[in-house]
């Protein structure tokens, strides 16, 4: 009798292409010398994710095996957990953090705990991207007790209407808006202030005003915002939709940074009648300094040991030739481009037809 090959988590995990490159498990170098010190792992199951999010490469109704579906633009190769731990152990200087992304699956909580326990001997902080649909508050407490330092929730959509349209009832998905927000609030309570994160995707059809409002809500809760620019995932229901225009993303990157750091607030920002940001409510000189620092336009994600951001997700939300979230500090040429993008004219994503 031959031994069956284990393809499911926790024995096996998918890993982002960028993380696999960082650990030398996949060939290739990063454009402009970008680096990543967060190893992004994804639970994997033969039966896949129970979610059916219209913009996600892992959506249930997309053809193909779960482990072969692309996710966030690229393949996520699969490796045995033992090999992953061995590779991280061999390269401690390259790894500050490991992030375990759950998927919506009945075994996700117990398997995440098993993976988190296996990571304990490593000198790396652990983040969990949680799956609220299959979790309770007690599960979050257990994750923290098992060594997780940060817990994040991918609410993704800025409004309840968009959430339902792309993740909930409309696409026959199991996710509920209120449940996601409750999970984020629980994560703040359990992990502590600024130890919870919220993923938001700019360009799913919301106005800039709506996204700024949601960003403010996240900061008011005590969580951090991890911003993504919508990029159409091949094979997903939104594959034919346009990527979020850079101007819309830049304005919300800047708004998020300035809200987080107390320069402005949702209520101080001005919007035109289409909901586009018309002014940030900040002294122009101060705004200029913030823009020229380049920091607002860098990837927002969990921190490293001595780095502002460990989870730089190089070229995760746009191709290297059209960078949306900079995985490094933008140079002067980049800042000049960003300046132009910040003032670029509409139409933005919100003007695209519904249901695209």
């Amino acid at each position, binding site marked *: 009798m031959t031994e069956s090959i284990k393809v499911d988590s926790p024995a096996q995990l998918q890993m982002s292409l960028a993380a696999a490159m960082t650990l030398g498990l996949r060939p290739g170098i990063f454009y402009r010398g970008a680096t990543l010190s967060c190893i992004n792992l994804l639970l994997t199951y033969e039966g896949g994710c129970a979610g059916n999010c219209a913009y996600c490469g892992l959506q249930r109704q997309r053809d193909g095996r779960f482990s072969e579906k692309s996710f966030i633009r690229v393949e996520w190769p699969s490796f045995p957990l033992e090999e992953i731990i061995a590779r991280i152990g061999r390269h401690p200087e390259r790894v500050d953090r490991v992030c375990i992304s759950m998927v919506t699956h009945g075994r996700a909580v117990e398997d995440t705990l098993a993976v988190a326990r296996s990571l304990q001997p490593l000198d790396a902080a652990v983040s969990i991207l949680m799956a609220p649909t299959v979790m309770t508050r007690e599960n979050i407490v257990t994750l923290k007790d098992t060594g997780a330092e940060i817990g994040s929730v991918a609410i993704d959509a800025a409004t309840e209407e968009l959430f339902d349209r792309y993740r909930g009832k409309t696409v026959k998905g199991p996710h509920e808006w209120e449940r996601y927000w409750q999970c984020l609030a629980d994560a703040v309570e359990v992990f502590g202030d600024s130890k919870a994160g919220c993923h938001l995707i700019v360009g799913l059809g919301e106005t800039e005003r709506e996204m700024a409002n949601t960003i403010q809500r996240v900061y008011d809760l005590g969580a951090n915002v991890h911003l993504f620019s919508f990029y159409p995932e091949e094979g997903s229901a939104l594959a034919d939709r346009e990527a979020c225009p850079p101007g819309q993303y830049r304005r919300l990157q800047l708004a998020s940074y300035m809200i987080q750091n107390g320069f402005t607030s949702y209520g101080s920002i001005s919007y035109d009648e289409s909901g586009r940001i018309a002014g940030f409510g900040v002294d122009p000189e101060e705004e200029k300094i913030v823009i020229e620092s380049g920091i607002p336009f860098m990837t927002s994600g969990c921190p490293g040991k001595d780095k502002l951001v460990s989870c730089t997700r190089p*070229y995760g939300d746009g191709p290297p030739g059209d960078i949306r979230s900079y995985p490094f500090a933008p140079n002067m040429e980049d800042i000049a481009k960003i300046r132009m993008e910040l003032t670029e004219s509409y139409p933005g994503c919100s003007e695209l037809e519904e249901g695209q």
Partner: protein
Amino acid sequence: MALISAGTKEECNWELPDDLYYHKKDHVWAKVEGGKIRMGLDAFGVWAAGDLAQMRTFPNGRAIRKDHAFGNIESGKFIGPMRSPVSGKILEVNDAVVSNPSMVNDDNYNNWIVLVEPSNAEEDLADLPHGEEAIRSWMEAELEDFKSKDLLNCD
């Protein structure tokens, strides 16, 4: 054939045929075929770029210059130019490869990219690595450079 090795892993061993000429920076190979030059990407260049997703080149008939781009390549995490080892004119673009660049990942020496009519081949090729010793010497320096930047990742 120069076999260049940076570790035991299969993907960290690269074959560079010694009858080809190489653009040192972008790892574009050039093969002399009578009065024409066929070009493609060498094994190390393919390794560095990763799985190719996009490729663009100038069209047939376009004049190209040595050390200037005749196209570019893009993978999930990298974008970069392909600079020409020689000056001349593009006679033919391998459209099958340009529309499906992963063919280069599968077989980078048979899946060429452009065929060129050179304008000054003898002079242009003179300073390019060619022959096992020259290729080995160039690649040793290249590997050192990658190692110093922590880009080799072959252990």
